[in-house]
């Protein structure tokens, strides 16, 4: 296999990992964003947290593996992106730590003050993580000013633009909607009735932001449609995305939340795909000089490393998928509180 084909295969595999992360941890983060709003008293809060209790940890591993794969297969991109997003990623790490420890610590004491404190931390961590993921995506679409070696030249404030913040808010809305559909499937009774309202509400916020972000990126971010002229087949993805989005309220009103959930999964997958298609073949577009852009070709590891990676994936991925199916099957159905719950 030639080096170029391997680079493209790895670019696709990284997208698979990123989509897996965005869909799976996406609903965890969404649940965290909604947590203070949909749950009214302690038992409901515990139900909301325990709906992701056995799942969030494994879902986060998709991010870890994505990071490891980016490091291994495109070390220059990993180095440049992570060092460019220094402060945002430090904050992201804090947000993920907040989310993890609030789940773990909250139930360890009965006092209201203790539990409310961890509720706030849980909400803050989840929301901040979603926001920062979105800001990073928006920033990457616009490109960064980098040196020939790929080192970012600006400061944190330079990357905070209206567009990147908008994509951040859009991500929060998207994941809140995704999380509300997930929670609807996992709950029952009054809590579930309330979630019906939240599903619809978050959907319309998501829709509004989707329209704004789509218009903004097609009109003002030149990269977003650069390949659509050469490959008209790509138009299938945004069209399918629109169908998926339209199907969400339809499935909700038909009381088929599982279809709504599948639709929002498809929407997330399509959005990640469109993001990757927009910047392809770059991983980090240089806004100052296109020659400095870090692409999947000039950032790639050696052919041997790419092949070793494929062997690791060939052995590992079937195992990973079987654990994932197994765990989701074991914890299927409505969430319930027991002696081992958070």
């Amino acid at each position, binding site marked *: 296999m030639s080096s170029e084909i391997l680079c493209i295969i790895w670019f696709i595999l990284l997208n698979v990992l990123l989509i897996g992360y965005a869909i799976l941890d996406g609903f965890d983060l969404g649940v965290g964003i909604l947590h203070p709003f949909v749950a009214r008293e302690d038992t409901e809060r515990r139900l909301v947290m325990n709906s992701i209790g056995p799942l969030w940890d494994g879902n986060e*591993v998709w991010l870890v593996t994505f990071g490891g794969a980016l490091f291994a297969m495109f070390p220059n991109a990993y180095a440049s992106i992570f060092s460019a997003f220094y402060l945002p990623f430090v904050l992201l790490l804090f947000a993920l730590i907040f989310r993890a420890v609030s789940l773990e610590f909250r139930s360890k004491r009965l006092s209201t003050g203790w539990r409310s404190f961890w509720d706030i931390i849980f909400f803050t961590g989840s929301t901040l993580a979603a926001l920062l993921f979105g800001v990073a995506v928006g920033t990457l679409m616009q490109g960064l000013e980098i040196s020939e070696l790929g080192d970012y030249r600006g400061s944190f404030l330079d990357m905070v633009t209206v567009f990147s913040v908008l994509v951040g808010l859009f991500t929060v809305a998207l994941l809140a909607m995704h999380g509300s559909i997930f929670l609807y499937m996992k709950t029952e009774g009054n809590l579930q009735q309330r979630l019906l309202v939240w599903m619809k509400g978050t959907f319309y916020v998501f829709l509004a932001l989707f329209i704004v972000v789509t218009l903004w990126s097609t009109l003002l971010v030149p990269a977003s449609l650069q390949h659509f002229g050469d490959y008209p087949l790509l138009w299938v993805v945004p069209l399918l995305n629109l169908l998926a989005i339209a199907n969400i309220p339809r499935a909700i009103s038909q009381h088929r939340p599982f279809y709504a959930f599948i639709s929002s999964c498809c929407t997330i997958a399509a959005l990640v795909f469109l993001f990757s298609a927009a910047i392809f073949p770059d991983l980090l577009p240089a806004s100052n000089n296109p020659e400095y852009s870090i692409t999947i070709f000039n950032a790639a590891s050696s052919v041997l490393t790419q092949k070793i990676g494929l062997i690791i994936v060939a052995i590992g991925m079937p195992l990973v998928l079987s654990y994932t199916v197994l765990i989701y099957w074991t914890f299927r159905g409505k969430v319930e509180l027991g002696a081992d719950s958070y």
Partner: protein
Amino acid sequence: MESVVLLSRLQFAFTIMFHYIFPPLTIGLGIIIAYLETRYYLTKKPMFAIACQFWTRIFVLNFAIGVASGIVMEFQFGTNWASYSRFVGDVFGSALAAEGIFAFFLESGFLAVVAFGRKKVRSGFYLFSVYMVALGSVFSAVWIVVANSWQQTPAGHHIVDILRPGTLADGSAGMVPWVVDGIVQRRAEILNFVEMVFNPSSVQRLSHVLLGCVAVGAFFVLSVTAYYILKGKHRDFAQASLQGALILGLLSSLGLAVNGHTQAQQVYKNQPAKLAAFEGHFETGRADLNIIGWPNAAEERIDFGIGIPGGLSFMVFDDLTFSKKVVGLDRFKPEDRPPLIIPYLSWRAMVGIGGLMIVICSLGLFFNYRKTLAQKGWLLWAFVFGIGFVMVANQSGWIAAEVGRQPWTVHPPVVWDSSGSDLELGADGFYQYDERLGLRTVNSVSVAVSPAEAKSSLILFTILYLALAAVWILVLDRKIRQGPEPVHQPEGDVEEGYRKATIDRQHARLDHGDRQGGAA
């Protein structure tokens, strides 16, 4: 630049030391829980069920913080050490990616069953899940220690110019070395994955790390059970756990000593400057073994030292004449020498505590055999606080290993002369490292990061981690004081309140055959 290097080193040291509180606990406890679950599965004695539930809850608490603080480590290679990442990614990255796919998915997936699924799955599958979590945590140690060992004793790779499209000498288009500001960019690329994984130090270092984790697990169990015996609480539970933990503690401590000895010999072969720093050995020649002392780098001697003459010659070569020549720091240029005081002291802390671990486990087993251990309050208190020292020993070992690796992040190879007893020296009398085959720490950091950014993140991590450590100790302390609780047997389990209501509704729904929406 220098300040970003220092701040990034401090941040890495602080965050990895915080993180490393948790993996040894989970690896060690995971193995102990696997043993207890097996006993429970085979005997169905309630005693084992109680013990499993108690240790599992502590395990889960530690695991969550271990995961959260572990992601920080993966991100930091990119955020703070971008130049390093570009240099090593081709080799080092594969090991990290393998860790994610083979280890983290395994342990986090089955941890869900272990933590939340006891009543949801059959007992055989539950036992299998416990094994998988233990296996996954061991795997994670494997890959990260492999990656770290490659930095210490690189193998299975070559260091080459990075090629980019350009114009060849004959004017045609082709791949040419990538030159930025007159400097040819180079990186490590893999040649042989198996040689990289089994580099000269990885097997010994991995054994040492895993034995250290088992020791932490054993001493953690000892600490809790000794406390219960002292307080006269949960007697049966404590007594049942104590003996096993004593045996495990003694075996792991003895293993650490034997493995540590051979590992030190390997360090001498591949990183002689590091061993010289551990031992404060300045002058090449017959080497003494310092028991205690204070290294004086300026005067190149050990102050207030008490040592065994020729002891280090014996340790390095198993040389009964106590006289063989050991290469000292004088063979290295000042800028190629590791710092002295930190490796010297942390090395001694690790070895010293390791010796004490053997002593107190032996005493514990002796008095346990004589059935008088419960009266030996001093020894039980030593066990209660022992875990803190074992943790310090684990951390010290890593400090010695990593500070002793300086001034390199990727250590260049060391070439011995034909006799094998001394290094190939340059005309100036010093060993000449091939700079192109290694990477210095000062050249490893992120250019994009400013001192102000590095400083703010370090301050934030310090505040966050100290707060987390305080809450963790608080929660852990309460759990231990509460002690093990009787386990509800499935048959006699009285369901009540919300849970009963939920389950009733669940059954009602299933009875009606309405399964809609439950498929996630």
